[in-house]
């Protein structure tokens, strides 16, 4: 009797498996594109983990010298990776080193003695060592594909310190698939084409698209930062110069003048471009 029951149970399982297999495959194919295993397992809490891993990348950027939850929070809520990237894009010197930084003076002898056992000096990873932040950025992007800063910083360090423009582009395109309306990602992708691939034409197309996205968000009342618009127009002006397209350069400079915090200097550049355009061609 028991053998019969076992046989029937096994036959039932076998039949159900053949019926269900197709349906499960279909369901998996439908959901696989949009939801990763991590997203399924963690739900919305994955965003919290993504932020944690993003902060971890910043901590690695400082070789472990990083404030914990009990230390003073970052001033503007920006990571130092981000600050360095932005400073580099503005061609400015990096932010000041902070010395004791968030640690302040030791509170007591235990604190003073304990500081010998963890990093207490503010340093930044340089050149090839910057690769050490990548695993955490990769993990952060997997957990929260909407965290745009992850792609921007990943791409910046890949294309600059590590000289890996192909990987930077792949990472940015992955970000663009998750955030198709992001002008920041298009701007950064333009830098990859302009600075690393020496293709100002492609860079220009990307920046034009970025400007369209920025304007679309502005028109929708989302108040995108004007600084981003200045950076995009700056990129366009750079591409115009490289392509020696003076008419387009004038038009882009006019647009830049409208949003730039320094319109006088732009006006001067416009005059120079006009003079150049008016001058008879030597060839």
């Amino acid at each position, binding site marked *: 009797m028991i053998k019969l029951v076992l046989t029937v149970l096994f036959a039932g399982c076998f039949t159900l498996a053949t019926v269900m297999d197709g349906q499960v495959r279909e369901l998996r194919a439908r959901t696989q594109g949009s939801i990763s295993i991590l997203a399924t397992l963690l739900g919305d809490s994955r965003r919290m983990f993504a932020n944690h891993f993003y902060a971890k990348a910043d901590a*690695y950027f400082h*070789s*472990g010298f990083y404030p*914990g939850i*009990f230390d003073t929070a970052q001033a503007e809520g920006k990571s130092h990776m981000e600050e360095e990237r932005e400073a580099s894009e503005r061609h400015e010197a990096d932010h000041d080193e902070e010395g004791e930084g968030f640690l302040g003076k030791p*509170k*007591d002898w*235990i*604190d003073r*003695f*304990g500081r*010998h*056992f*963890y*990093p207490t000096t503010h340093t930044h990873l340089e050149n*090839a060592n910057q*690769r*050490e932040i*990548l*695993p*955490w950025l*990769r993990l952060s992007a997997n957990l929260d594909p909407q965290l745009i800063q992850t792609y921007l910083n*990943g791409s910046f360090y*890949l294309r600059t310190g*590590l000289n*890996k423009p192909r*990987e930077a582009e792949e*990472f940015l395109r992955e970000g663009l698939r998750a955030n198709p309306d992001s002008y920041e990602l298009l701007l950064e992708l333009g830098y990859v084409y302009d600075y690393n691939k020496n293709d100002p034409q492609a860079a220009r197309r990307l920046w034009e698209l970025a400007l369209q996205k920025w304007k679309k968000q502005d028109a929708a009342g989302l108040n995108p930062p004007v600084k981003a618009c200045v950076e995009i127009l700056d990129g366009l002006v750079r591409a115009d110069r490289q392509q020696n397209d003076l008419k387009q350069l004038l038009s882009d400079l006019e647009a830049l003048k409208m949003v730039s915090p320094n319109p006088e200097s732009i006006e001067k550049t416009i005059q120079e471009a006009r003079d150049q355009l008016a001058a008879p061609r030597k060839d």
Partner: protein
Amino acid sequence: MNNVFAIAGVVIKELYRRKDFYVLFVMTALLSLLLGSVRFFNDDEIVRYLKEICLLLIWISTLVIAITTAARQIPAERESRTIFPLLAKPVGRWELIAGKFTGCWLACGIALVVFYFFFGLLTASREHAWPGTTYYQAMWLHWICLGMVLALALLGSVVFTAQSSNATICFIVVVGILFVGGHLHGVALAMGGVGGDIVSAVYYGIPHLEWYDVRDLVIHNWGRIDWLILGGATLYGMLYSGFLLGLTWLVFRRKALTL
């Protein structure tokens, strides 16, 4: 002292007869090797994340080994009633405590050597470097820290009736100190008043296990620690372990051994 080392020898034999260490070591090695095989952005030289994960697993594994080994020593002797012939040998109660502690500590030391050797090999395969002094210092501090944890678990084993509750409480206390121990004074200063004074007293009173966690220095290649500082941390750890063992003996001395 012969009695102490005889008891310690039995504890060490127990460690390699039990499966705990092997399971934890294989799990650590497998997870580390698995994560080591992952490539990020076609770069084979990324190593710090691997060092971090491997060291984290080593810390978890050794804490599990230390707490579970120490927490079961005296209760197991009582349950199997082997404590009676042992104390009738004659072995004093302090010798029993000292022997159990020494055995557990040496057993943890052996486990640490195996774990750190694996860690060194794993790191060297990527980094092509062997900063022996840094690894030795990290392992030494880890061992001193485990000494305090063992003494705490032994104290718990004579205070709490159940082995499981002792292990759980020890885990909570140790993890709590590792995470927030160093920040309690800051919290106390922010609180102020009587509550702040109480938190301050707790801060000065607890064993500062967080000093002995030098993972960040190892992961980010910060170089070796000053030997004098290392000596100071060793002295503090030994004094604290001695204090906890003394306390254990005081409680155990008056304890009725009947079940």
